[in-house]
């Protein structure tokens, strides 16, 4: 039963799209109802399964998936020519990321109910994007994984270019093409992985059991790691993210920054580092050097920007840099921290972009110098924004604190001067983060209220609901991180092979 429910996570959004094909585009209310219902059902299923995984911990996992601790494991032959199978399974790590995705998709659908343009196509694209993200986190077959991973490109461009704002065509193209560049690098190495390992299938677990030749690993690992890192905006492939996010409509920014950028980091951990541990050990110190840009310079750039979405995008770049710091630490605690940061940052950036979108809908500008005193007119949205900011700068009590401190501990454990120096710089950069967040909140929310904003109203019920739910998630992870750490540790332990 649980296995069927698990498989339905990615099937349901797809079925929703098919069902909506039959509904004429003019029946907007029906369409919205269908999509909200579907997103809510998926959210319920994912929450239930996350609980089920937690409740089951300690019991033996599926032996077919050993050494990984997977449950709800499904393995069906798919494409016979290259032995691709349909393999999905769940452990703590991907289940939590699925839960994150379900929350963000649900919130994304709710915030975009009033989007202008052809709603039928927009919601269909959101559901397709959701399918792709769910699929990436669930699949353990490399072909299946890649199919889902690359699917996003199809949806992202259309959503940004058709429903976005500002330089939407430019932003959309930049985002899509850069991500496609990353996935091309991944695809190129996937063939190598399959043939060099001599495995008879693309099953991740089976390939992990073989020993890949070292000279292959040495060129394949950096190619694949950077390919994944493109979508997590690791320097020097970060340039797509500010333009892409700022051009995208609210829901797409939320999904892109909240869950899609985690797909890259997840791929780095699950595929690149898991399959090529020897090369990971050699190459990851160089990645640490790249992080200086992400973690240290990212916040400084954010200080100088005036556009809310640019600020948030650079803040995301710096937070995602921390994920890579955790990964590059190569210690269990570092990996746990990285995974925690993926989840935590997903919620917090989702909240950020949601509130920014709501404020933008009212003020029609994202330039913080033109705003002021918004707190008086929109206290609820203002508080939501400030709370997201607090979580972002790592205030204890919110999830960001737990994740970041775990990463710092993990990274400092590594016996390398460079990593330690970068860790110290990263810790110091929290101050810079505080500067831009407080400065933004101050300029936007306080001070004199411009005349034209006199008639603004606070969030409506559905907007408040989104903010409350996302804040609750942030607090929940921040206050009781124990069970999450437990789930993560169980799933990370078998993946440490260096």
């Amino acid at each position, binding site marked *: 039963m649980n296995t069927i429910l698990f498989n339905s996570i990615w099937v349901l959004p797809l079925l929703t799209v098919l069902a909506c094909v039959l509904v004429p585009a003019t029946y907007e209310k029906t369409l919205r109802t269908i999509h909200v219902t579907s997103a809510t059902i998926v959210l319920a299923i994912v929450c239930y399964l996350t609980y089920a995984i937690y409740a089951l911990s300690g019991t033996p996992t599926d032996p077919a998936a050993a050494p990984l601790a997977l449950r709800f494991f499904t393995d069906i032959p798919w494409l016979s*020519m290259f032995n691709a199978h349909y393999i999905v399974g769940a452990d703590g790590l991907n289940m939590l990321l699925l839960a994150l995705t379900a929350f963000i998709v649900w919130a994304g659908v709710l915030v975009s109910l009033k989007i202008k343009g052809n709603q039928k*196509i927009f919601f269909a694209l959101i559901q397709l994007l959701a399918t792709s993200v769910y699929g990436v986190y669930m699949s353990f077959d490399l072909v299946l994984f890649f*199919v889902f991973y690359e699917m996003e*490109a199809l949806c992202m461009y259309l959503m940004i*270019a058709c429903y976005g704002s500002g330089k*939407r065509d430019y932003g959309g*193209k930049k985002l899509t093409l850069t991500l496609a*560049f990353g996935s091309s690098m991944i*695809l190129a190495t996937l063939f190598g992985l399959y043939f060099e390992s001599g495995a008879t299938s693309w099953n991740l677990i089976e390939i992990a059991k073989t020993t890949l030749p070292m000279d292959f690993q040495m060129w394949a690992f950096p190619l694949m790691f950077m390919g994944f890192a493109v979508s997590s905006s690791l320097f020097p492939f970060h340039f797509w993210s500010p333009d892409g996010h700022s051009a995208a409509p609210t829901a797409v920014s939320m999904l892109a920054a909240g869950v899609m950028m985690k797909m890259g980091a997840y791929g780095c951990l699950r595929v690149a580092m898991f399959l090529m541990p020897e090369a990971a050990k050699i190459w990851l110190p160089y990645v640490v050097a790249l992080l200086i840009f992400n973690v240290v310079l990212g916040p400084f750039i954010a200080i100088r920007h005036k556009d809310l979405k640019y600020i948030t995008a650079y803040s995301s770049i710096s937070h995602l840099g921390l994920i890579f710091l955790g990964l590059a630490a190569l210690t269990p605690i570092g990996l746990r921290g990285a995974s925690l940061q993926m989840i935590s940052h997903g919620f917090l950036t989702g909240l950020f972009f949601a509130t920014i979108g709501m404020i933008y809908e009212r003020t029609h500008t994202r330039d913080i110098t033109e705003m002021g005193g918004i707190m008086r007119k929109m206290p609820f949205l203002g508080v939501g924004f400030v709370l997201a900011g607090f979580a972002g700068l790592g205030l204890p009590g919110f999830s960001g604190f737990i994740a970041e401190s775990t990463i710092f501990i993990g990274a400092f454990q590594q016996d390398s001067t460079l990593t330690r120096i970068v860790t110290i710089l990263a810790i110091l950069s929290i101050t810079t983060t505080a500067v831009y967040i407080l400065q933004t909140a101050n300029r936007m929310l306080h001070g004199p209220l411009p005349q034209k904003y006199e008639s603004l109203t606070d969030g409506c019920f559905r907007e408040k609901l989104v903010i409350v739910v996302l804040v609750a998630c942030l607090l929940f992870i921040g206050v009781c991180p124990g069970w999450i750490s437990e789930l993560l540790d169980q799933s990370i332990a078998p993946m440490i092979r260096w």
Partner: protein
Amino acid sequence: MFNIPNFILPDVLLLIFPFVVIGIRLFVTTQSKVPWRMANIGFIAIFFLLNFIPLASGNGKFFICNWKVDDFGVLMREVLMVSALLGMWLSKDYFEHGGDKKPPMHQIAEFIGAIAFATFGGFTVVSACDLLTFFLGLEIATIPMYALAAWNKRDQYGSEAATKYILMGSVATAFELFGFSYLYGFSGSLHFNEIQAAVASGSSPLLWIAVLFLFCGIGFKLTLFPFYTWAPDVYEGAPTPVTAVLSVTSKATAIAFLVVLVYGPLSPIQDKMAPLIALLAGVTLFVGNLGALKQSRLRRFMAYSSIAQAGYIMVALLGPATIAKTAIIYYLFVYAVSNYLAFFVFGIIGHHREETFQSLRGLSKQNPSLAIALAISMFSLAGIPPLAGFFGKFHLFFSGASTGHYALVTFAVLNNVIALFYYLQLIKAAWVDEPDGHLNPLRLTKRQREVIILLSAAVIVLGFLPFLSNNIFAGFTN
């Protein structure tokens, strides 16, 4: 009477059939739809006949020619039949709604007849097992295309295109014939089996000259670098259905020619030819992709896109026989469907407007279903999953990588990003640009809508539903 072996039956039917269609048109009125209906029924019947594999495979002598119809032959015929069928539907569209320059309706019988002859040529290429039959097949496949390209006699660009095509094609034929003559000189036989034995027993400069000339000759037809330059002009000048047939049937025939040679008589030196194939593949797909970047006319754009696709197909020729043949056939299927979908959309646009990117402006607002179909076909050609084009390219790259050509595969995969860029340009015109009031409104007939929905569904489903890919593969491994 003739003793017709079973396996040759579809070919013979396809040969008789255009005469029947053209003959019927002598006895009906000029507006009659009977020839078209006949053609439709005939093509579909032959397609189903082909699926009856026990009937369709075998080998023997018929007239003076040696025939060998194996699984590759049967599957390749199905590809060619799909292309012919879709080409015929597209011609119907063109003859009914094709704007001012369209030829009179009663010519459709000859038009379809020419497509059928070209398809028959393709049939012959895939089932020949001596050089003579092989060459005949290639010529039968090409000559009707010259006539088709010149169909609009009064159109200046059409005539220019046809002239270019004939000149270039003849030169290519000369190259091939020259290559064949050296191959014959080297082996002393026309029969493939004996040539293969001679090639296996030792190579000589004579053989390599033959190989070089063969690749040059087929390079023209497959639009490989540096012989691709005719393609954009011809694609633009010819009528829409001809362009579509040219980009699918001709290309399929040319690649089948290469497959037959590389895995047949030349198979002993396949690994020695690998650098040549890899070079041609890499340069062709790069040049095609670069050329497409700056185009603003739809059919020139499709020409460069199909040049790039030819490069991608060449990548598969580096692999072992079973994998490469599966990959190529599967790719040709999905390429045919995606390409025809694009040409159906462009055809509808061309009936009412000029065929440029400008004419696509605001398509998503005026006619969302057409814009969706366009996006599906473009994303499929760009190789974005879960559409069929991605799985097609995956097959091709898999074949290339299976013999360790990682560098070429990496290059080809990275080239996909350039490809995605220009396909996005087209999608941008249709989806992002604001509608232009000066453009003529588009009208879709019920039949056009049905065809577009059918093809879009096929592009979506053929990819991730494994039946097509798995069946083709099973056909080769059994």
